[in-house]
């Protein structure tokens, strides 16, 4: 086994697995192009081959030198390795990936429910509200004690909510959430600075630059978004 650790083998297996998965999918676009004999799949497959070679090269490097140091001084300056971090256990990874899955559950589950129950638009909106509530509750319960996982998932959750609930309603909650996850606990200061940041963003982008931000499309979130646009512009 040389200097290999399980992590090295998992890392190489992930790369090789990705290559295999994408290689199988590449048959979907293995089509001839009249003026180009290599077709549409040669370039992507060459990249997959090189990834596989580099992954094996990295594995051999680990086998010979273990984790080793960064190979160059420049690389050492960029070494953000997780060594010495509390956020490196299997349990941490599992909970973090669970948190990261929550936004995608929200993005897919309401449509699936609406499809199964043949719901119209108002029904779909209700399903989205209920699923969003559950997702937020699960997020709050899960991220306690795992603030790094929480900060990784919160922006994606915010992005997933933008289409339905709009930037105008979601931004203040998002700003306060990020402050909390970064360790701020002085609630009065959080509210004052959070609202100040929100006002600055609104004035600069919406009032001065007329940037169109998502207003949302569900019930009073949409009404709130359009009212804000009318006031600011």
């Amino acid at each position, binding site marked *: 086994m040389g200097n290999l650790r399980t992590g090295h083998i998992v890392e190489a297996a992930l790369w090789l697995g990705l290559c295999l998965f994408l290689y199988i999918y590449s048959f979907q676009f293995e089509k001839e192009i009249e003026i180009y004999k290599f077709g*549409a799949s040669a370039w*992507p497959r060459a990249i997959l081959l090189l990834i596989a070679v580099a992954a094996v090269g990295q594995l051999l490097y680990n086998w010979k030198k273990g984790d080793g140091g960064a190979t160059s001084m420049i690389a050492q300056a960029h*070494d953000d390795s997780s060594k010495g971090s509390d956020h490196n256990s299997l349990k941490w990874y599992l909970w973090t990936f669970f948190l990261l899955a929550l936004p995608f559950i929200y993005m897919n589950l309401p449509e699936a429910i609406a499809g199964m129950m043949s719901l119209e638009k108002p029904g779909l909106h209700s399903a989205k509200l209920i699923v969003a509530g559950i997702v937020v509750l699960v997020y709050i319960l899960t991220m306690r004690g795992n603030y790094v996982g929480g900060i*990784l998932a919160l922006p994606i959750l915010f992005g997933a909510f933008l*289409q339905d609930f709009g930037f105008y309603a979601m*931004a203040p909650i998002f700003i306060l959430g990020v402050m909390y996850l970064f360790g701020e606990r002085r609630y009065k200061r959080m509210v004052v600075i959070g609202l100040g940041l929100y006002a600055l963003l609104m004035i600069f982008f919406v009032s001065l630059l007329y*940037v169109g931000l998502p207003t949302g499309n569900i019930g009073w979130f949409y009404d709130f978004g359009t009212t804000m646009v009318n006031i600011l512009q």
Partner: protein
Amino acid sequence: METFNNFLGGAVTLFSDPLGIVIFFGGVIGGMLFGAIPGVSMLTLAAILLPFTAHLSPEHGIMLFSVIYCTGVYGGAITAILFNIPGSPENAPTAFDGYPMTKNGQAGKAVGAAVMCSAIGGTVSAVIMMIATAPIANWAISAFGPPEIFALVFFGLAVASSVGAKTFWKGWLSILIGLLIAVIGLDPVGGIPRWDFNMPYLLAGIHFIPTILGFFAVTEIFVQAENRAKGSYQAPKLSVDFPSFAELIAHKFAVLRSIVIGFFCGILPGIGATLASFMGYNEAVRWSKDKSEFGKGKLEGVISSETANNAATGAAMIPLLALGLPGGALTAMMVGVFQMHDMEPGPLVFLNSADLVWVVFAAMFFANISILFVGYLETKTIINLLRIPFQFLAPMILCLATVGAYAVRGLTIDVIVMFVAGAIGFFLRRSGYSVAGIVLGLILGRIGEQTFAQAMQMLHFEWSGFAGRPIAAALLVAGFLTLLGSIYGAFFKKQV
């Protein structure tokens, strides 16, 4: 003499028009601010402003974008140095030594070097651009066909693979991830969808602006979040200590070398300031007697990359104005400005709109000069941003990034892509991969594949055809030698 008269004419036209002056200074300050504020970039500003240029004259529209280009490339250096968040990929190498300098309490000196070298590189480039536009463009166009551009992309990626990642193999994997992302969408020859998984969003390809915002701005926030949780977060020390004249003189060869590299890279379509700064930095490392100092906060690292990327700005205008070939995202947006006014950039612009060309040239010259003055004043404002506690700065950066990602195409999925890229970047960075390498691969991937396809068609699918083209052959050989050297170093040397 004719060039000088044309330049004077352009300058007089520029500064005798009150609206032109307002737009010029608006572009100078806006470019710097958007380049400097973490989470947004000059591309964000340009994307936001693009629809409004329909209300401006073509001269004002193109001049505004060219000024934003010059000062934005510099502005990105400020955040690269102070926050380790390059405003755009062309500032990524600036962070390699700039950020360690900040951590060593030399933020002011690093920013000062960036101000001076950006101004020097940009101004010299603008002057050469004015003098040599026609002959250089003619040479590059006649000497550089698709085989040469593909060979240069390959050489650039081979050189860049050794930068930023923990090992050589992870450097290559980083670049290959970027190339892989660039493949998603329609293939450049036959328009066949690849890895779209029947999702309309993926059919158009993953847009590089949300990806860049994610990998740089968002990832940095996540990394800082973990550092705080580990208790290893350190607020940078503040100081304003511009480098002395003697220090700059001591680095004169680095400045000259970077000007040449930057200009050469900038003139080639699709290569531009990003590769210029990487190559400028890499050459500085290669020529240095004491390579071990790089990455720890060496002034020459900042000087080399900042001179090179600004030296590319003037050069990048040559293929755009002479041939209508945009070299990057911002010059591509300039094509959009031309098209909004029913114009096509290219040789006819020189014939039909000589005034426009010379107003733009004069504006770029003065924009680079103004970096020296406005840059000095504004940098102090930006440094004050460091006094803001990170728990208040982080939500602001994330919200600005959200607006920037959304403003490009008005799609919320771009915001999600940005944050997912940020999370992926976080995991990759803590595993020793290079996000700068990913972005370089992403940007050069498309042009690499396109020029490879064109080259193979030109060479009748004969690989030996490359040997018959000396420049392409030399670049390919140099790229392979760089690769072999890196592989040898990875396995058989203690440290490269």
